[in-house]
């Protein structure tokens, strides 16, 4: 008797399972399509990165780090490259990097337009916001299950779980960035006769850029963390190294994999962040600006901006 009140069931689990079944039987075509496109994107990025001779790629990363962040960070990048080669996890690192870039790219291609739409339509924002909250509070492992059910094992489901998990910040910060553009800037755009697409591309997006870049940075970082988890459904890369370490209770191997992830994370974070700081607000100047300044400093053309 006392149990009666808690003795009922809402079979949410059953409903979800039924939904999944339905999708699997009725939407195979769509699922296959998605799968093929994603496979293509992932393969081309991985192929590209694996195709470059490791030393040249490493040199490129060091140069990029030096240019975007500074020479100290360049030194760090050199140390990171030496460690990755030394631990013999270069191939896994590059595989992870390729998957991160491919997943992030797809996440951004889908997420940024959603963010733009949210910023322009309050009703759409009201619907999307709770979905984003939901997506962000779900434990990441949960994404692995439907991904694996619909797409099997491998890089494609790994990438799907990743891009869904990593998309919310790009959506949110695009929306936020556009909404934060000052009323006077919008008025200036309209007063000079912008059409609504001109307003978007000439005023709102450029002014929202720092915020959008912060969103891109976060998306890439989330993608990295998810790609590691996604190795549980066969996404490969550094996550595999860690996973193997766990399965064999090999602390050393697990640590090496973990260290690889950390190094990659720091490199990706600092380099993508450097693009986010507004170039006109004291961030690292663009290459062109640097060249311009260099020539302006020469004695025969002392004119300064």
């Amino acid at each position, binding site marked *: 008797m006392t149990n009666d009140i808690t003795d009922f069931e809402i079979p949410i689990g059953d409903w979800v399972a039924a939904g999944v079944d339905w999708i699997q039987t009725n939407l195979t075509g769509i699922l296959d399509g998605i799968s093929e496109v994603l496979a293509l994107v992932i393969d081309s990025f991985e192929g590209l990165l694996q195709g470059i001779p490791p030393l040249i790629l490493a040199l490129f990363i060091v140069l990029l780090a030096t240019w975007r962040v500074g020479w100290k960070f360049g030194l760090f990048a050199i140390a990171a490259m030496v460690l990755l080669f030394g631990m013999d996890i270069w191939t896994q690192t590059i595989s992870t990097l390729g998957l991160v870039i491919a997943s992030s790219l797809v996440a951004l291609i889908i997420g940024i337009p959603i963010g733009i739409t949210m910023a322009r339509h309050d009703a759409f924002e009201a619907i999307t916001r709770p979905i984003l909250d939901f997506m962000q509070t779900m434990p990441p492992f949960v994404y692995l299950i439907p991904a694996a059910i619909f797409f099997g094992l491998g890089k494609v489901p790994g990438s799907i779980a990743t891009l869904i998990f990593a998309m919310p910040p790009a959506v949110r910060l695009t929306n936020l960035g556009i909404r934060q553009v000052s009323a006077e800037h919008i008025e*200036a755009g309209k007063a*000079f*006769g912008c059409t609504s697409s001109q307003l978007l591309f000439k*005023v709102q997006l450029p002014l929202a850029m720092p915020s959008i870049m912060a969103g891109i940075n976060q998306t890439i970082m989330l993608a990295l963390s998810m790609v590691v988890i996604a190795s549980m459904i066969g996404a490969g890369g550094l996550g595999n190294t860690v996973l193997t370490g766990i399965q064999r209770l090999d602390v050393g191997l697990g640590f090496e994999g973990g260290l690889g992830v950390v190094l990659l994370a720091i490199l990706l974070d600092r380099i993508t962040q450097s693009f986010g700081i507004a170039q006109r607000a004291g961030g690292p100047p663009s290459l062109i600006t640097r060249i311009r300044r260099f020539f302006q400093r020469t004695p025969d053309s002392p004119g300064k901006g």
Partner: protein
Amino acid sequence: MQDKVVVKDLYKIFGPEPDRALELLDQGLSKEEIFEQTRTTVGVQKADFSIREGEVFVVMGLSGSGKSTLVRMLNRLIEPTRGQVIVDGVDITQMSKQELITMRRRSMSMVFQSFALMPHKSVGENAAFGLEVSGMPKAERRERALQALDTVGLAVNADSYPDELSGGMKQRVGLARALATDAPILLMDEAFSALDPLIRTEMQDELVRLQTTQAHTIVFISHDLDEAIRIGDRIAIMEGGAIVQIGTPEDIVTNPANDYVRSFFYGVDVSKVFSAGDIASDRAITVFERTGVNVRAALAQLHDRGHSLGIVIDSDRHYRGMVSVNSLADAGRDSEHPHWEDAFLKQIQPASADTELSEVLSQVTSNEFPVPIVDTEGRYRGIVDKTVLLQTLDKTT
């Protein structure tokens, strides 16, 4: 002058119940009462006026009186709730989206209080913004932008970025952006309010100078009467969304419509409102320089009327000189047939009628004699003396 913009019975109601608010307004309720009953704000009500081609039309009023709302209805950044805005004979409230965009590109441009420059664009690109939006090729729009920047003295900064400029320079870029499109109408919402007082005065003078070379029809929002008087041909004063008075600066200062309007003038520098001609008084004795009236007769005339000074004018009322009882007596003593010239007070220089009062002020106060005022043709208009000055200054403070 021709009417450039005609505003007819224009209303803007913000909030949930615009129709009901309009009804209540028609019944004569105030903005506050309507807000209490309906949570609906009257932004602008029954605005009815026209702006003439080439004039600087200043809109003044306290914060919240509806100035920004009014000016934004002129280019429909804010949609009017009721009424018409007629620009060059066309009612813009009836325009389609596309027509409206064309109108904004061709006929009106705007200058903003916080400048609203695009930080990612260079000064030159910012100045070219309006032209870029309307699809002008890059080389051509750069040239036009450079011309506009040159007008405001910033052509050398074309390749700088806004964050490298001072506030005053930024607003010059804002002005250049508005000038570059060649739109005949400029809307300026507190365009100079964010600037330091010194820079602000400089920009005001710049605007006035600009008006003499390429006259635009300017609608200028301000909450500063000194600014309004300095640049305005006419001033409209707003209170609670309604326009309570429109007139020239002199009109408004001398005949304020109500206490609200009058309250603006406390602490206003009247010497800038009035020109010498506005207050010149005819209290001085005028003596005609013609046959039959000689120096001795003039002396007698002054004695009779108990005046110590007189103004000598010719038959066309041209100013000839000022004489005093002493100078007339001296001239009569020195010569048998004294000339008028001998009796004129040498140190007195007439001032022209459009001289600012502040300039005449120092002459009057440093001198025991009044200052004679003449018009552009040299005809005598009156005198300004200490008494006249005191009366004028007293009227408004």
